[in-house]
């Protein structure tokens, strides 16, 4: 078997285990390429039946408009249920406080909205598109990763995970985060997207837009970035390698418009994918700390 077939078969197997083992699973959908790939894999796993789970999007309110438009089109085409948890609702309810200043971001706030959404719907398993090659905390996380009733990940108390036997047994109030594409790399995802001809939001491909430079990174010149007279707005040809919130996702200068060019660009790139994520630059253990707090 070719490696992409192996990775695909493994991911489908994991998705079907979720369906078989849990009462109320959900698929966390960010609008990024990894979660779009998950949706494609779910179609392979469950069609012509319906998905045994809804899609859940945690909307920071600072998303790229292209991502939201893409999401709505995809949902309409799939005919599956979408549940949206709004960070704005958490702010309005006084559960979180909006950060102030130039580098303000809602990225950290979405953990609260995520945990509230999980609790409100009683989800016992949440499927996510995280990959182990992204970051060293993720390199040690299980495919079935148990979170306690506070949503926390405890790296010291992970269950041994052997062969393809996934232990999804939990107590009430706990939930399991499931990562079907744990063993995929960034390049694997792109090669698979090319092979399967999966559609993606336009911002992954080279386009011209207004950008500003913040902390050495090119950021889309959006109103959420609190642009002032010190910021120089430039019109540049860019694309995004990951798609998160506009306040924490940096662009790269790129002419790569076709998927073949993007794959070549990634092959030659000497910067890792998460190098363009401001949220990981906070400290060496930034991802580990967020995961312990209940992040994706």
């Amino acid at each position, binding site marked *: 078997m070719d490696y992409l077939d*192996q*990775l695909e078969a493994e991911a489908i197997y994991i998705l079907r285990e979720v369906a078989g083992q849990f009462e109320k699973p959900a698929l966390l959908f960010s609008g990024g390429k990894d979660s779009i790939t998950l949706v494609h894999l779910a179609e392979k796993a469950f069609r012509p039946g319906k998905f*045994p789970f809804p899609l859940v999007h945690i909307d920071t309110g600072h998303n790229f408009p292209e991502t939201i438009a893409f999401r709505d089109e995809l949902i309409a085409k799939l005919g599956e249920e979408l549940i949206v948890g709004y960070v704005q609702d958490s702010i309005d309810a006084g559960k979180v406080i909006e950060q102030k200043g130039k580098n303000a971001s809602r990225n950290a706030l979405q953990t609260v909205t995520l945990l509230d959404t999980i609790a409100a719907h009683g989800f016992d398993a949440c499927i996510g598109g995280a990959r182990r090659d992204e970051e060293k905390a993720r390199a040690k996380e299980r495919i079935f990763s148990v979170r306690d009733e506070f949503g926390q990940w405890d790296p010291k108390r992970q269950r*041994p*995970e*052997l*062969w*393809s036997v996934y232990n999804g047994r939990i107590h009430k109030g706990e939930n399991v985060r499931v990562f079907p594409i744990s063993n995929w790399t960034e390049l694997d995802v792109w090669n698979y997207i090319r092979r399967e001809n999966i559609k993606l939001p336009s911002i992954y491909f080279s386009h011209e837009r207004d950008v500003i430079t913040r902390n050495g990174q090119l950021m889309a010149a959006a109103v959420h970035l609190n642009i002032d007279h010190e910021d120089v707005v430039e019109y540049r040809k860019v694309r995004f390698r990951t798609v998160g919130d506009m306040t924490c996702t940096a662009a790269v200068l790129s002419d790569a418009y076709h998927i073949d060019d993007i794959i070549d660009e990634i092959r030659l*790139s000497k910067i890792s994918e998460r190098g363009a994520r401001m949220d990981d630059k906070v400290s*060496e253990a930034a991802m580990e700390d967020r995961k312990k707090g209940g992040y994706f």
Partner: protein
Amino acid sequence: MDLLKFITAGSVDDGKSTLIGRLLYDTDSVLDDQLEAIQRANRKNNDGTIDLAILTDGLKAEREQGITIDVAYKYFQTEKRKFIIADAPGHIQYTRNMVTGASNADLAIILIDARKGVIEQTRRHSFLVSLLAIPNVLVCVNKMDMVDYDKAVFDKIKTDYELLTGNLNIGQIDYIPVSALKGDNIVVQSPNIPWYDGQSLLGFLETVTINHHLTDKQQARFPVQWVIRPQTAELHDYRGYAGRVIGGSFKVGDRVVALPSGFSSSIKKIELSSEELSVAENGASVTIHLAEDIDISRGDMLVKEDEQPEVSQLFEADICWMDTKPLDFSHMYLLQHHGKTTKVKVQDVIYRINVDTLEKASSDHFGLNDIGQIQFKSADSLAFDNYASNKANGGAILIDSRNNLTVAALMITKSE
């Protein structure tokens, strides 16, 4: 392009982290921002080169508390192959960690320090490799630079290792003299070791035949994970059994039996999403349709009529205990065997093994990292194969229903 999954066995002292770091670094798998983070951490070797071991360094929780969290996975690829390394660090919990990492490995790298030679730890690691039935072993004799690249040292270790593994069931063993620190024989053949004319470590990993001889002989197994029943007007009678082939292959027209019920039928259609297939190969996730409507649900298994596994409530298994709380003979544990979960109880302890001396003793205490052989009785019948002939259908876990933890790995050997 294919995929090789391997595990590295050895402690920090053997230079394991340096070896993995060197492989990643020399295959250009370390990116600039990751290198920059390493440089910021400012850890250097005595000769001023960067300390590659940091590439496999653990989490903050591990650094602060001086503990190790079992397995970390590393990914790299060359023009020829993709690789997944299961890096299982740690001293105290090593058995548990290594068993976990080894469960999915095609190959094990056993590191031996050239200065120390074959030691007790080497024996323990090699025993675990044979217990988990990893088909290929590569012995890397490391730190050759510290013994002046002496051929006699390498030859002695090779002889000692052959002696040590004489009684173990390991398919293929190869040997490479290396220095991870200096990069000798890691990516290219080292001029410092002219007496060795074999491949470099990377060259070996890129070309070694992933041991398929087992796979060829395996019988066809298809555990059902999920039944697809759209129940819509146009797909009213659609009933597809979703699962993954874990041995052999199935094709349209094959006569099959559903276990444990024993009802038989034939395969009408194999599909994946909207694509129709004539064959489902080993490892493929597919949906199978049968000619007759028979009662099949999650946890059942389809097999070929003329290739049936053992079906029994009594079975023996090599067991590795993985929990800090020891095996409680009065408790009924849950056994999970792919999609099937059933209650089990201990019928008889056959022996416990000392992993350092490999001596068998009769003991009723199974604590963390203890290994032995136990006879179990299960509430429902299991349809299984011997672990050595089909890992996926002979491997199972025990779960403690009181706290839901995975407490043991079972390699099923036979029924009585």
